[in-house]
């Protein structure tokens, strides 16, 4: 097939699927968090409140997009769509099935990490351009947190790369299909790499317990304080999108992607992604958050040395079990 046509079809499909799942994840979160808090979630629009995201979207679209008087107009306006674009861009290299992948890059993991680190910039742009002290505090915290947690994220993602011997995500999955999921085998480096990957990616996505950039009890809404209407909607959506992409990447890197005990295929990938996604929400609604200096100390004191040890142990494992390479 013409590679341009293939790319276009994949782009449209992946974008739409991801954005739809993200929109309904808002419904899922409200229902799930409601149940955890001994209340019902949305019940009014649609059966069981299923049309709530539609109604929320319409509400946000019809609100006025206010730009504060002394705000930096250009940065203020492009920051929300840029966040969404970068979050979606990372979905391009995630393999959903044996040949279902938008762009099978040889450097898949590197591309993922690069775009992941780029997502800090629109967050910082939105905070800085708002001309609001709360937003600026949130933006500074976001930059500090995002840049610091890059390192454990890279180190934790390196472990599957070393074990599989390739940076391409579909190669990593194929390796896991042959040799067992990295989260469980090899025991040690794989499991701990997952345990380090999860907090690091939660910190990248600004989720509780690492959500100080948007801590509502301290900074009203953090970086999105001054945003109204669809600007706020896009920032909100981008956070969920980033979380969804993280779950997809984690299930590819550590849980075997489309592999399953029987009938491997797209459905296993969907199941694992949504399972991890629900798990991240579960964590969000149960834990209180860290303070910013405690967050930094966790990163630099525990996750970075731990990550280095993990990478070394993964390398040693590969050396002794497969005679080098």
């Amino acid at each position, binding site marked *: 097939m013409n590679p341009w046509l293939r790319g276009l079809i994949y782009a449209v499909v992946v974008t739409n699927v991801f954005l739809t799942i993200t929109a309904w994840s808002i419904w899922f979160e409200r229902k*799930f968090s*409601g*149940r*955890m*808090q*001994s*209340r*019902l979630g949305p*019940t009014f629009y649609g059966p069981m409140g299923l049309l709530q995201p539609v109604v929320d979207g319409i509400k946000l679209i019809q609100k006025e997009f206010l730009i504060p008087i002394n705000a930096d107009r250009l940065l203020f306006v492009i920051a929300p769509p840029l966040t969404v674009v970068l979050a979606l861009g990372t979905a391009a290299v995630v393999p959903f099935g044996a040949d279902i992948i938008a762009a099978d890059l040889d450097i898949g993991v590197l591309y993922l990490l690069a775009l992941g680190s780029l997502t800090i910039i629109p967050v910082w742009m939105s905070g800085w351009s708002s001309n609001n002290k709360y937003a600026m505090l949130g933006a500074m915290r976001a930059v500090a947190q995002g840049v610091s947690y890059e390192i454990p994220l890279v180190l934790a993602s390196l472990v599957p790369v070393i074990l599989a011997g390739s940076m391409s995500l579909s190669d990593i999955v194929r390796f896991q299909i042959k040799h067992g999921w990295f989260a469980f085998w090899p025991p040690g480096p794989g499991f701990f790499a997952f*345990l380090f990957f999860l907090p690091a990616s939660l910190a990248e996505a600004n989720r509780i*317990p690492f959500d100080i950039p948007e801590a509502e009890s301290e900074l009203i809404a953090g970086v999105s304080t001054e945003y109204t209407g669809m600007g706020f909607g896009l920032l909100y959506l981008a956070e969920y999108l980033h979380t969804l992409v993280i779950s997809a990447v984690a299930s590819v890197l550590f849980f075997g992607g489309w592999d399953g005990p029987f009938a491997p295929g797209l459905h296993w990938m969907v199941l694992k992604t949504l399972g991890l996604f629900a798990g991240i929400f*579960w*964590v969000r*609604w*149960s*834990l209180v958050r860290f303070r910013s200096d405690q967050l930094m100390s*966790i990163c630099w004191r*525990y996750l970075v040395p731990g990550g280095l040890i993990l990478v070394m142990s993964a390398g040693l494992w590969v050396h002794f079990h497969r005679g080098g390479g």
Partner: protein
Amino acid sequence: MFYFTDSLRSLAASLRNVFRRPTTVEFPDVRRPRPERFRASFALLHDEAGDELCVGCKACERICPSEIITVELVKKDSPVTGKKRAYASDFVLDSNACIYCELCVQVCPTDAIVMVKTAEEPKFNRQGLVLTMERLYENEKLRPLSWATATLLSDMQSPESKSATIEPKSATAVAESG
């Protein structure tokens, strides 16, 4: 540094609540049953013969801390007994500012004003929540009456009362019309 194990305990606690029944009551489709003494709005009563109990003495107007009651006195013949007695020609209670303290119920010498157990429906302007005499007499039939009347409260509080707990007998209540 036991973040992980402590977090697992919180996660378990919140997951346990997912499987319990939610405590939400979906008002207004489902309404909780209110106890006997619940105070939500007001009603003026008639006595057994059908005569209005209110004598327009303005005791409630004087006691109200928010000054929301306005009473006008008139003397006219009773339609039931034929004798001349005091009535309230106008009784207005502005429930916008009511603090539901029950003092007006307590001071009434004829047990005329009582509280009712269901609240007024929300209206679109403040005037809609000003209870006129007509609405107050309607509430007697429309809404379930609360237990407390002036006599019952006075009996409860009087220094001569013996101790035993006073049963809240339900007053002339109609079925809860919602």
